[in-house]
């Protein structure tokens, strides 16, 4: 369990030069773990994992994957290495059918393998098979998320990186998404997850980091973090005054 598969070292990254959003963050993900990154709005959680996925320019630090330096490697090479990223929104191709969304991700498989792999995915996600001809843009939010995760799994990734998979979903689908992630981990895939829904994420996670202003401020065992007063402090203390929509830790039910 303790062999690191993904390590982020002192990472500085941002969309514009000189304006880093991630400011010296370091996190480690060990093989077989579910690691959760929490933090207030604007803490740089999404930017952190987008930088790992090669989508946000990195100005300092390193990303090590499977022992190799993948810092600022082009985004399209990541799946070849075994790192699959699921963006938060717009994570399906809306005009393509469910099946084409899966097929288009088979590019790195041998063309002979693709049909069998898609059949396996359908066996795991029967809902997707029922909707295989539907344009992905017409799926419900939960099904869209399912398709995005299924598509990421198609290339047998070692690590699955997800940006707020429960965002915008109804409570029923939130539960479904987290159950799905638990099952995926059981199948041997390591998971790195950014979440606003701290309670649900910590319930399935092994370890968690709290990211504040682009840097990890706290780290711990997921189950213990839920009741950790430091975490509540970091969340509430760092909440920008203007951001009325910031979700306080545990929504007042804990801490």
């Amino acid at each position, binding site marked *: 369990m303790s062999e690191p598969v993904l390590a982020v070292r002192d990472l500085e990254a941002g969309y514009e030069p000189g304006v880093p959003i991630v400011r010296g963050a370091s996190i480690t993900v060990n093989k077989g773990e579910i690691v959760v990154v929490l933090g207030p709005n604007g803490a740089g959680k999404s930017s952190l994992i987008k930088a790992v996925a090669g989508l946000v320019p990195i100005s300092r630090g390193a990303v090590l994957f499977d022992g190799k330096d993948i810092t600022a490697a082009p985004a399209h090479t990541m799946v*070849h290495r075994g790192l699959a990223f699921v963006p938060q929104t717009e994570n399906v191709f809306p005009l393509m059918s469910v099946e084409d969304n899966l097929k288009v991700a088979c590019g790195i498989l041998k063309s002979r393998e693709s049909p069998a792999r898609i059949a396996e995915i359908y066996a795991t996600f029967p809902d997707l098979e029922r909707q295989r001809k539907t344009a992905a843009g017409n799926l419900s939010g939960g099904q869209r998320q399912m398709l995005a995760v299924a598509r990421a799994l198609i290339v047998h990734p070692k690590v699955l990186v997800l940006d707020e998979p429960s965002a915008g979903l109804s409570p029923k689908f939130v539960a479904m998404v987290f159950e799905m992630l638990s099952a995926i981990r059981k199948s041997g895939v390591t998971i790195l997850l950014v979440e606003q829904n701290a309670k649900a994420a910590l319930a399935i996670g092994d370890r968690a980091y709290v990211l504040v202003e682009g840097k990890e401020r706290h780290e711990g065992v997921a189950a213990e973090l839920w009741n950790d007063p430091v975490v509540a402090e970091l969340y509430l203390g760092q909440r920008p005054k203007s951001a009325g929509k910031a979700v306080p830790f545990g929504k007042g039910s804990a801490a």
Partner: protein
Amino acid sequence: MNLQFVVDGLLTGSMIGLGAIGVTLTYSILRFSNFAHGDFMAWGTYATLAVVGAISAMFGKVSPIGSLSFGWPLIVALVVGMAFTGLLALLLDMVLFARLRRQGQAIIVVMASFGASMALRSLLEFIFTSRPTYFSRAIQIAMPLGFGVRITPDQIALLLLAAVLVVSVHLIMTRTQTGRAMQALSQNAALARVIGIDVAKVVRVTWIIGGALACVAGVMIGILIQIRPFMGFDMLLPMFAAAILGGIGSVPGAVLGGLIIGLAEASAVQLIGAEWRAAVSFIILMVVLFVRPIGLFGFRER
């Protein structure tokens, strides 16, 4: 009423449609209006003409196929011309567009394509002069089809060629991994990269397909009308109108848009007067932009 305009419209429409496929692909995948697309047509046509000349210099006079106006040299030359035009588009992208694209401002790329258009055209005038030329000066006998409609063997052959090409491109776009990658890139570029699509590779394929089809459209004009350095530039407005009417990014849309504009132009000539021909694509473009800016098969940008 004479229905000849239907045949004329279908012919003009398929030329516009073939050109519009390139315009719509470039627009949806590279996100800019390539004003040099018309000049790819002209360059492709002149390249084909040059190869025809080279072949006849080597093999002497070759008799035409059946009742067509051309023989195998033109077919071979067209294939060479298509490859040449695809490579020309690729080269222009490498030395010009790709560099400007990296700066991230679409309008600069559009202006650059306008400049490239002028430069390419002037170069053609310099090399081949601006005097019109022809693949063949032979006169073809049009066959009556009834209802006062006449069609020449060349016209039939070219309509068939256009249909075959359109169906092939549609199948490439929908049935092959490369085509799906092109669709993916046009719908969401960041997500396309995330799932492992090499954007540079897809961009290259896009230029080659667009360039090759522009060459065919140009050669069609060359066979049916004449070859001039301005032949492609004059098609620019109808091609853009067709691409926008069909919905940016849609191959069937571009072809249907081309046919509608071709038929509208031809019927305008028949019913109103030839001087209104050029206004037709402009009017259609305006109406589409006001009434349904996403076109027939388009989708709303996120």
